[in-house]
């Protein structure tokens, strides 16, 4: 009897460690299968001659840096990179400022604030492609509602070429994306605002702080973790933009709205050169990874200061 107890005691830490791993195993397998494998595969693919032939023969000969050279030799890559950055930063700034303004506005709770807030969620519920089709009509140079409106109020006499001029198209795509992104920003930030204790505002009011000062000194600092989440999630979904651009402008006019997303789509699915498509895909992954690391760092710093 005492011997068995002794043995089970001796084994139990190892057994418990095994159980612990068993619990982690499903998550680990899932990560390996659905994140690890595609990632490794994508990196490998960028060094392979991966064409329609590969699908039939199963052969994808390694071709060194050829794909990378071809992609980097294309002047379009540089344009697409900068346009992606402008698009991302522009979208985030627009979505965030307007989302924040609306969140603060609605946190005051007035009559009908609930229904109005619900209406503002609509852009989020409409499928992206539908939004794009509608916006294509709104922004039509000759007959679009937007230009008619601008003409009526006297802001512009001859139509703004929203989607037909290379110097305006990127801005137009950003505007539409801001419209799409406002609800997400508003909802998350509104949720964050509800978490801030009312007493802080009362104390600030007693100390004579005005609304502007209260916002900068209380609301924003208290909201910091939420803000980081909103911006990082926003960044991740914006930097890889594809569907909106495809439906609005198809990357044009004159490549002025090409992004890394549309470029990788073009290379992989229109030219069927999956090796070169993977190169651009990898560039996108690296960009996202850099921001993920920055986010984790910021998070750690936050927790550090909190202790």
């Amino acid at each position, binding site marked *: 009897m005492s011997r068995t107890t002794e043995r089970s005691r001796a084994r139990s830490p190892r057994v418990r460690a095994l159980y612990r791993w068993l619990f982690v195993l499903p998550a680990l397998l899932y990560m390996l299968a659905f994140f690890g494998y595609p990632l490794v595969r994508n990196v490998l693919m960028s060094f392979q001659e991966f064409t329609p032939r590969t699908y*039939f023969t199963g052969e994808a000969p390694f071709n060194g840096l050829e794909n990378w050279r071809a992609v980097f030799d294309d002047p379009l890559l540089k344009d697409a990179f900068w346009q992606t950055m402008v698009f991302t930063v522009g979208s985030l700034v627009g979505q965030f400022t307007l989302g924040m303004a609306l969140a603060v506005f609605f946190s005051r709770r007035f009559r009908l604030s609930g229904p109005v807030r619900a209406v503002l969620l609509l852009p989020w519920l409409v499928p992206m492609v539908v939004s794009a089709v509608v916006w294509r009509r709104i922004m039509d140079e000759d007959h679009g509602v937007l230009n008619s409106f601008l003409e009526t109020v006297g802001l512009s006499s001859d139509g703004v070429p929203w989607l037909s001029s290379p110097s305006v198209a990127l801005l137009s795509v950003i505007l539409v994306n801001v419209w799409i992104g406002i609800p997400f920003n508003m909802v998350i930030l509104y949720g964050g605002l509800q978490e801030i204790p009312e007493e802080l505002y009362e104390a600030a009011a007693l100390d004579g702080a005005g609304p502007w000062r209260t916002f900068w000194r209380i609301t924003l600092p208290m909201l910091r973790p939420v803000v980081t989440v909103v911006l990082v999630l926003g960044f991740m979904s914006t930097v890889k933009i594809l569907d909106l651009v495809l439906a609005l402008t198809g990357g044009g006019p004159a490549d002025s709205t090409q992004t890394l997303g549309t470029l990788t789509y073009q290379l992989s699915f229109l030219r069927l050169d999956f090796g070169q498509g993977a190169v651009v895909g990898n560039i996108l992954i690296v960009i996202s990874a850099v921001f993920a690391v920055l986010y984790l760092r910021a998070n750690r710093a936050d927790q550090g200061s909190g202790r």
Partner: protein
Amino acid sequence: MSASNGRTRRSAAAVGLTAATLAVGLTGCAAEPDPDTVTVLNSATDTAEHEANQDFFDRCAEPLGLRVEQISVPADQVASKALRMASSDSLTDILELDGSELPQFAETDGLRPIGEVGVETEGLSDSSISLGSFEDTQYGVARSVNSLALIYNTELLAEAGLEPPTTWDELRSAAAELTGGDTYGMAFSASPDADGVYQFLPFFWSAGGDESRLAEGGGGASALALWKELVDSGSTSRSVVNWNQQDVNDQFVSGRAAMMINGPWQVPVLDAQDDVDWAVASIPVPEEGVDPLPPIGGTVMTVPKNDDRERERNAGRVLDCLNSRENQLAWGERVNNVPTRAEAAATYREQNPKLAPFADLVETARSRTAVVGTRWPVVGDALAGAFQSVLTGRSSPEDALRNAQRQAGEDG
């Protein structure tokens, strides 16, 4: 201690069970193919189109004791879906591809030459054979083909006392004259994708442009200059850089364009409305006496290689029947495309006087991939870049073509 151990054990069992369920779920995807069924991958996602296809398939398969099963995905996903199927050895017995995608598939060596599966190719038009061929071997057969023509608003032209233009000069002046109020004289698609490129080709080719040497000769530049002029003079909307062929048709149907370049696939929409009376004319050429050279379009049916040769033969039998004179004619009338057998095309021409110009145009029409083969997607992109940068005023026609040639690379 023992209680907590028991709980852990039970949970561990649950974990194991989950893993087992997952494993079972992942296997067992591939079904055993039925020897009497011929499978088809096509883009007939539209219900009416799907049923019409099924109708023709049944008509051919039933006497042979076969059944046809269609798998339909949106047109722009056919190629990638087919590739995924190929990698898992589950490709359909018949693969219907857009003609411009054929070379990339033929190059893989995964398609069976159409002559080897018993499809009668004698009597098919040269342009349709070229559409289904890669490096002098025919891999795909087109039941019917389409092209582009000038479609015009008969009322507006009659009011202005104009005949449909036949040359570029006439096109310029007619477009200018027809422009007024809310209406542009001319509309075409110049979107930076396959639609825009398809529409640019008749101008590019008939002016002497060569897709394998984009910047050579003055042809390409004069075609670009024509488009630019139409837009700059206000005869054509600046928005064309953002219009696909559907948008162009919408403009025409709403009376905002007096003339447009478009294809016979718009006929159902044109027929379904009463606001605009329309007619079809040949596409204008640089000068009198020059043959129009529009691109030939349409899908081709191919037979992927199969270890089971009997399946290939069955597919071949169905294809042969679909391409009989009567079936081609019936199908052509169903989809407003021109049959590819000479006699069928002649009958079609007689029975559809309204669409007769298309029947003439497909005779001189050229395949996009005949010269550059698998490099077509790159060359097409380069051409799109050229007309987009010219129309938006970013570069001159000559510079744009030099740039395009660099982009197309190799011998292009």
